[in-house]
């Protein structure tokens, strides 16, 4: 018997119980819908967290002195020669083509005081032209500008929470106290800009000044703590990290600087995402298992109440294998209908949330953060390539698994049953 006939029979069999078929397919559709929506929102939230982490932190790829991570960044520097060598490598055509920007930075820790208060801060010396368009802070300026103006007093840009704490505004003077060598240095700075990221730690503890100003304060002309490399596409991270590392290892004589991907530079964030994903899979996997049991139930009932029919078919010469295939087709069709409807609904919701976002603002009056990166209250759905294919494969496997036992039972029917009862 050919497959198209079996297909037609399976389809008709399904609609002998339209209500039952509809309900089962509906359950499956809900399962697939939830899977796509939750994957979309999960991926979207993760992607946003990664983007925030990368733009706020040290880029997709960070180049820093070897061993810097064992203590804290500011105690290790690339000297002027090493920094120039790194710049040359980043300027090579095969690398520059995929790099949106590379920002050299110098880090220090110190005490920032106004007439009213003082607090411990993390100081970042940055080149404004090279931060703009890639790093997060220039986009988060709420008043003033990002280190554009150069006056007689070195400029600084501080967070809104820090400005409030020190009770200073644009144009105010603050004193940065930090250590250069064995002596404590005090440097007068003028507040030229104020940023607000919404992340408490950042807004209260981060201070930016121009790179050359910080180099002068620390008596470290040309020194760099790290290069933050921002790529056009985050998908290139691993490949570009390897390529840059290769070039650096080739051209440095002594200990070359280490090259880290954002996953290595922000292990907490990376691990959180893996674990959150695993939880998401587990939850949806169990839901779909629950739904697949519904398919099993429906098909098994359909098989058991048609024992006479099967035995008649067998008596007429249909082979047990063909009955197996027919029942499997029924199950797969049922799964396909449910999955199809779920896919359409899920994709629609995904497109909607991708455009307008899901506002969790009503659930949370405050943002919360994971691994120091704040989670936005508006989540935009995003699906990694391959998610839909992965979902459909999983669903098809479930539908197939649910059909095995009923198909096996159906094929075991004996021709003699038709005449009995």
């Amino acid at each position, binding site marked *: 018997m050919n497959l198209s006939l079996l297909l037609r029979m399976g389809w008709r069999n399904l609609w002998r119980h339209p*209500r*039952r078929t509809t*309900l*089962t397919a*509906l*359950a499956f559709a*809900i*399962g697939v819908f939830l899977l796509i929506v939750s994957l979309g929102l999960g991926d979207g939230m993760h992607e946003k967290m990664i983007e925030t982490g990368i733009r706020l932190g040290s880029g997709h790829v960070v180049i820093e002195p070897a061993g810097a991570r*064992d*203590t*804290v960044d500011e*105690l290790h520097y690339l000297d002027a020669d090493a920094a120039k060598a790194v710049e040359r490598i980043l300027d090579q055509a095969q690398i520059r083509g995929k790099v949106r920007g590379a920002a050299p930075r110098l880090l220090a*820790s*110190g*005490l920032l*005081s106004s007439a009213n*208060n*003082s*607090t*411990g801060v*993390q100081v970042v010396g940055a080149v404004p032209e090279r931060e703009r368009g890639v790093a997060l802070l220039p986009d988060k300026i709420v008043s003033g500008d990002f280190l554009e103006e150069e006056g007689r007093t070195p400029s600084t840009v501080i967070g809104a*929470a820090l400005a*409030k*704490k020190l009770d200073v505004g644009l144009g105010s003077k603050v004193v940065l*106290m*930090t*250590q250069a*060598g*064995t002596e*404590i240095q005090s440097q007068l700075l003028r507040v030229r800009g104020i940023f607000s990221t919404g992340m408490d*730690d950042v807004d209260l503890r981060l201070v930016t000044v121009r790179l050359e100003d910080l180099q002068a304060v620390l008596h470290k002309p040309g020194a760099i703590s790290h290069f933050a490399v921002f790529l056009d596409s985050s998908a290139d991270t691993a490949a570009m990290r390897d390529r840059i590392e290769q070039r650096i290892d080739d051209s440095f004589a002594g200990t070359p600087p280490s090259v880290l991907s954002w996953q290595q530079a922000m292990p*907490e*964030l990376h*691990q*959180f995402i*893996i*674990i959150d994903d695993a939880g998401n899979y587990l*939850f949806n996997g*169990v*839901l779909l*298992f*629950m*739904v697949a*049991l*519904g398919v099993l*139930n*429906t098909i*098994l*009932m359909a098989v*058991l109440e048609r024992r006479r029919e099967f035995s008649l078919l067998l008596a007429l010469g249909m082979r047990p294998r063909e009955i197996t295939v027919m029942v499997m087709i029924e199950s797969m069709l049922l799964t396909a209908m449910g999955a199809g409807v779920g896919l359409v609904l899920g994709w629609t919701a995904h497109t909607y949330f991708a455009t307008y976002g899901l506002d*969790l603002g009503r*659930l*949370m*009056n*405050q*943002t*919360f*953060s*994971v*691994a120091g990166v704040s989670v936005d209250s508006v989540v935009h759905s995003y699906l990694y390539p391959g998610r839909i294919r992965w979902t459909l494969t999983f669903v098809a496997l479930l539908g197939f698994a649910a059909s095995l036992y009923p198909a096996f039972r159906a094929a075991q029917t004996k021709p003699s049953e038709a005449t009995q009862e």
Partner: protein
Amino acid sequence: MTSSTGDPPARSSLSLDAVLLRIGWRNLWRNPRRTAITALAIAVGMIMLAFVLSIMAGMQRDMIDQGTELMIGHLQIHKRGYLPDRSIFDFIPRPGRTLAAELLDRDEVFGAAPRVSAFGLISSGDKSVGVEIAGMDRDAESQVTTLGRKFVRGDLPARGERGIALGRILAGTLGVDIGDEVVIIAQAADGSLGNDLYHVSGIFRSGLDLVDGGVAILDLGVAQELLSLDPQQIHEIAIRTTSPSRAQAVASVLQATLGSTDLQVAPWQTLIPQLATWVAMSNSWSWIMYVIVFALAAISVLNTMLMAVFERLHEFGVLAAIGMRPRSIIGMVVTEVAALAVVSLVLATILGFPILYWVVASGIDLSSMTDGFSMSGVPVGPILRGDWVLAKFALAGMLLILCAVIAGLYPATRAASADPARLTRGEIR
């Protein structure tokens, strides 16, 4: 019930109920395979719901405990306006040590630790870091926070000792160990620059990078000396009460007794709003779980019961023909649905108990994937332990029965609306 004076109508209706119950139960097992599969599907959903509720409650419990017990305490008292700027000049406008001692007399206060806090630069050799300098009383802290138990080496400085306790990361950055000297420079309350030498008395590891890398702790009296504060000038009093869940209630009681003009009593929810937000978020998340699991369970029940009813329409017709009231037929079907829900719950309990026991007793060990990460500024993991949230399990169980009964009403009314004459002739499928 069996007393001879009981009135007959009541007795007969009672026995009818009993009969309906028995019929419903028997009907359920006319197709044992279908019942078993449906019950399994619902049980799987319920086990997952219980699992998620348990893990979430466990995470909330651990995060709140960690967040409050490490340094913050369940609640804190400050001068009004001290938060969030923590200006060194805003000390509590009362004799602070005396106030802390008086608070201890109250039943709901288990511990009260007076503290001062300032920012300064700590240096050793050619390395220096801007840090928060906290002045703490070791004995009082041990009643309020667990910081004293987080020491890798040494301890908090004793009363009057010119020692300093540092976090693991800070000690590593400065390259110092126990007994080494560090210098602290801080802005003092009289406008001068406080500047003094201390020996490292202990190194702690809290698991929070911000604390391990940014906090240096002196003895309270020694810190007051550095900052030119009088012994009674205190910035905050951290308080431990019976449990974090009582913090808000105790805070409002204390606020009322102490007066609200110049003092602010803040529960942890105010002190760590991120954590409170996370708790609220995870609670709303668990309601979404309820809805999803119950929706799928309701569809399973509806599907199974529709099958069960439609294959027995003939039977219902006969029952109606011999005088069974529609209400009784509905009762019979609803009994069957409720019994199905109960069987599912029993199955969920049997299958789920070992899973939940494992989650609560040993927890999910993620240490192969992570050393733990911070959420809302609180360290989480690497082992996630669940909690026996029996009240929530019971609520979920009752909601499931309710859900099943609602889903069963449609098949039941279909069964009850059977027209005996047409049905017995087999005219309606």
